[in-house]
């Protein structure tokens, strides 16, 4: 009789694999269903780019806040009532200027200041962005629709530790006199990652 012990069965679908873990957690009293609901709320309602947009608009209109934000991002966003996970011990805010463009990535996985700028978009976690943006930043940004002037310095920030980064976009010239609320509506997650300019 042939040895059947090494015959591979077909891989279960990802949904079934998730169901299996969830059911096993449930049976052990770990209450996964409740936590999934809690997580859904955080992901959909709390970790949104509108948080970072508020930070940016405040920095554009309040020079003292901007100084605090650049000196210690974590303390400054906490002052606005925003929170970061305990293991994100530091938030470094990267100031774009007419001469300097910053862009963030995580080549090793997908790290982001998600409670401030929102959870990372799909492409940020894809192999292509992670592999290429550190080495071919100008080319990649151009392919993504951001054609930077040749003389503009590019600074790429690879999130390899638990320090988190966000880009402070350059305030558009035509927005003089706008309210903070109106300014905040201009600010996108992509601009705080640094793959677009406003």
């Amino acid at each position, binding site marked *: 009789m042939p040895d059947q012990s090494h015959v591979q*069965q*077909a*891989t*279960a679908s*990802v*949904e*079934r*694999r*998730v*169901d*299996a*873990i*969830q*059911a*096993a*957690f449930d049976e*052990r009293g*770990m209450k*996964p269903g409740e*936590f*999934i609901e809690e*997580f*859904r709320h955080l*992901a959909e309602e709390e970790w949104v780019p509108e948080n970072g947009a508020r930070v940016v608009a405040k920095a554009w209109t309040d020079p003292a806040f901007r100084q605090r934000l650049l000196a210690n991002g974590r303390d400054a966003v906490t002052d606005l009532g925003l929170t970061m996970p305990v293991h994100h*011990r*530091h938030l*470094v805010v990267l100031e774009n200027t007419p001469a300097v463009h910053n862009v963030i990535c995580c*080549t*090793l*996985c*997908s790290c982001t200041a998600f409670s401030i700028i*929102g*959870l990372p978009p*799909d*492409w940020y*976690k*894809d*192999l*292509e962005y992670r*592999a*290429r943006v*550190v*080495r071919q930043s*100008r080319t990649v940004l151009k*392919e*993504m*629709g951001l054609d930077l002037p040749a003389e503009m*310095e*590019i*600074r*790429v*920030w*690879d999130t*390899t*530790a*638990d*320090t988190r980064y966000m880009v402070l976009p350059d305030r558009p010239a035509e927005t003089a006199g706008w309210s903070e609320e109106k300014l905040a509506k201009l600010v*996108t*997650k*992509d601009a705080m990652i640094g793959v677009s300019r406003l």
Partner: protein
Amino acid sequence: MDGMHDLGGRQGFGRVRYSLKAETFHEPWEKRVNALYSLAVKLGIFNMDEYRHAIERMEPRHYLSASYYERSLTSLATLCVEKGILTREELERRAQGAFPLSTPSAPGRPNVATREHFKPGDKVNVKTDYVPGHVRMPGYIRGKTGVVVGVSPAYPFPDAHAHGVKADDEPTYDVRFSTEELWPNSADEAFVHVGVFQSYLTRVA
């Protein structure tokens, strides 16, 4: 480990699949996976360094072909089995099929005993360390020279923390490298900043 996950600077990849207002999640199960591994971290079953390392330990063919959240799922399942919370047999019985897990872990290492302190402006060299376990030094900076531009609060040393080895907190330094230093004659001109743990660095005189 010099794993498949260490993608920075790898060549041959095509255009970023970019769209405006791109979504984070595409299928309902993806949010469940994210919640379940967060729950496991919250319950103290494993920490984020162990979680990241279990993704890195996926067999390379599986790593490259899996979606982002399938990688999360594989790490979660692997660690629950390794920690004795679940068995693979139970998972495969419940899933009614094979449940691929990550490959076994190699040993970790403690913090380097004698570490130097740096300040912004200091010129530093990344050690030419090759380790079998978890490491947060991307391969593209190994042996390269840069300048410290920032200092972070201390974090647990990941090379230890991912392996149940006693991990002292140590600072990370934002180190600026020129792409010319990293990939001579083979990169767009830019500065790349990397958060580098103190144990990975030496001073350049």
